[in-house]
């Protein structure tokens, strides 16, 4: 993240209005800038700043008003949108980091693919963010580039879950436990819970 740009924009969002408000923002900024801060905590800090700024409509309305929040009354400030877009997804960070490490080590896509045991197009797709690497691929890439896996992907637990979500969508055989569970559900009467199509904004 370009911290200077971010900091430069903050005075434009009425930091002078409240000392407490200013202190909160600066604490959050320090968290964002610290090398020690995890990806998730950094994201939280940006979210806190975003909430504080977007809901700080006037001197009288300091802090978050849930009634407004639920209705989405908040407007976004440019400075905070900038910070949020800088912290988009772990996948984006991964692609940037992979590119950076390959450049630093002067490794081509073909060479890396050979070390990792995947195809060059697969590496290309990861770099272009057209597909997410599975956990095992991240571990192989980290080994090939001689870095810690979390250097490439801050939270590997997330990839575990995403791998599972991708796996359950695949066509396949049904195991005995799964088919037993399905049969039991099919033997039950249909569920009477609410089912309502929400209106469209576009229409």
């Amino acid at each position, binding site marked *: 993240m370009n911290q200077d740009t971010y900091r430069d924009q903050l005075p434009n969002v009425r930091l002078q209005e409240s000392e407490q408000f200013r202190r909160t923002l600066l604490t959050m900024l320090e968290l964002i800038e610290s090398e020690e801060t995890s990806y998730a905590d950094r994201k939280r800090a940006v979210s806190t700043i975003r909430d504080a700024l977007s809901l700080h409509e006037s001197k009288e309305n300091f802090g978050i008003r849930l009634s407004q929040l639920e209705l989405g009354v908040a407007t976004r400030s440019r400075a905070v949108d900038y910070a949020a877009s800088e912290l988009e997804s*772990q996948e984006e960070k991964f692609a940037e980091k992979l590119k950076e490490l390959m450049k630093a080590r002067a490794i081509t896509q073909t060479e890396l693919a050979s070390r990792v045991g995947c195809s060059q197009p697969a590496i290309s797709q990861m770099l272009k963010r057209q597909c997410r690497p599975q956990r095992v691929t991240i571990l192989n890439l980290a080994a090939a580039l001689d870095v810690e896996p979390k250097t490439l992907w801050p939270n590997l637990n997330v990839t575990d*879950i995403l791998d599972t979500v991708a796996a359950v969508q695949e066509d396949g055989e049904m195991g005995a436990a799964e088919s037993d*569970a*399905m049969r039991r559900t099919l033997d039950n009467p249909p569920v009477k819970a609410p089912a309502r199509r*929400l209106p469209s904004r576009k229409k």
Partner: protein
Amino acid sequence: MDESPYQLYADMLTEKDRPDLAHLDCGSGKWAEAATEWIQGSDVWESIKNRGTRVWLFRNSRDVVVGYGSLGLTRRKWPPPDGRHANLQIIPMLGLDHHFHGKPADRDWRYSHQVISHLRYEAIDTLTQHLAEKRSTLPLLTLYVHQDNAAAIRLYENFGFVPAPQVKNNDHILMSQKLEVTGP
């Protein structure tokens, strides 16, 4: 039901929505972070492209993105092990921005309830269409939820999903429900 300021609106996710997704933050905890990552990364687009998954973005009346939900089809041999392939409806992923968790207080308009109710409607509608077209589709709606995500399990149970803790996939358990066919 009367109009409410908490009414959500559902529209299919398109490429044009990408900038709005940058603000979506489903909260902390590994499954909440996975829900954020799924919609912000390439998983959602891969699912749409390769699996035909439908993904809706839910906004409130102020056009703020509250969350998203998805509905896909997978194919399983039914009855196992030698039956023909049948479609099985699955909710691959859904997520609410953390600002809107447990909101509003009025349960009739709770955002999570509106989202699941919408997905149930779409699943019933799909099943009805498939049956009319004589396509082989099981009258079931399924999902996998992390076994430690007690709040989500409770929510799904309130909507009629039955957990099958014996069916595990990487710490995720199967939940399923039988759908009611409403059409001819």
